[in-house]
């Protein structure tokens, strides 16, 4: 039985089985994990953009993790339905790199930093503490979250490192 659930681009998964792990790959996107280690409920979203520019709500297809505002709202509600206590929900995140660099000081390819800034803002607005992060820089990351331990493991194939946050 495969205990690792891989989350695709713009995807989102909620688990309440602590034998399972959540996994995704992010470059300039951000892997945000919300968890309640007492109730053993966690969610991970692969955030691509801060919010939808036309203001319409997501259509409930495969990309519910795509926009930060919609993904967090969906995750919190679904986690509460699965038994999480909103007061105990904490967050970890990784990614948000600036992969493409330009020689001038003003890079237009800064979606990663915009994703990070927006996520921190809405976590604060929702009183969800961000307990650890591995963000920024200029490389892609494999991200795994273990619900049993609450640990997030971040791996870079390019930089050849693995760290636990």
């Amino acid at each position, binding site marked *: 039985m495969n205990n690792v659930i891989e989350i695709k681009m713009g995807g989102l998964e909620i688990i309440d089985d602590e034998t399972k792990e959540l996994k995704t790959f992010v470059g300039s996107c951000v892997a945000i994990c919300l968890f309640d280690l007492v109730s053993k409920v966690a969610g991970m979203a692969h955030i691509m953009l801060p919010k939808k520019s036309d203001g319409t709500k997501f259509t409930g297809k495969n990309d519910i993790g795509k926009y930060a505002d919609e993904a967090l709202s969906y995750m919190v509600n679904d986690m509460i339905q699965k038994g999480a206590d909103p007061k105990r929900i904490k967050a970890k995140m990784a990614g948000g790199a600036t992969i493409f660099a330009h020689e001038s000081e003003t890079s237009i390819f800064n979606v990663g930093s915009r994703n990070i800034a927006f996520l921190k803002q809405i976590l604060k607005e929702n009183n969800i503490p961000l307990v650890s992060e591995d963000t920024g820089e*200029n490389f892609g990351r494999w991200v795994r979250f273990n619900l049993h331990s609450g640990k997030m493991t971040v791996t870079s194939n390019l930089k050849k490192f693995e760290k636990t946050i």
Partner: protein
Amino acid sequence: MSTSNDLQKLNSVLDSFIVQKTIPSLRSILEEPITHHLRNTQEIPLINLDLIISNLEEMNIMSAVYIKCVGDIHMGVLLYLPEEESKTLAAKLLGKPISSELAGIATSSISEIGNILTASLINAISIDMGYKICSSVPGYAVEFFRTLLEAVVSDFGNEFDTLVVSNVELHGVNSGIGIHILLIQDPSEVKKLVI
């Protein structure tokens, strides 16, 4: 969803632009004959994008240039080749061997190739169809293809849950240098090019 007929037509239209302008540009830069192959144009759900990553691309570090085109046509252009081949390309452009990591003027030369090839394509589209298109400054990266693809798709910022992706390969016959180009568009853009 785009129809398969629309995607086939888009494939043909892009192929004609590449033949008209992009190949002559690269032939002029490399001073050698160029072969090309527009592998396919397909509409892919975002969640399935990793299916286009080949095993070879998964294992090799790539040098890449990303340019975003805006205006009447919205298109993302990702040019990439294995890092070792990009050293050969930079050496050919600069007229001296690149022994260590790509940096400085060597990376600029790769970015400039991306700039020229993208400009040749959008120039062909503009001349043929009358569209006004502006291209961004080129962004340069060295990473695995998975990271490049993820960053480009994220930056492209489409609001659909699918993308139209065209996959082009250009090869220098003498040098063996192979440049891959991914052209990324919103599904809503397809009709603009297949009138």
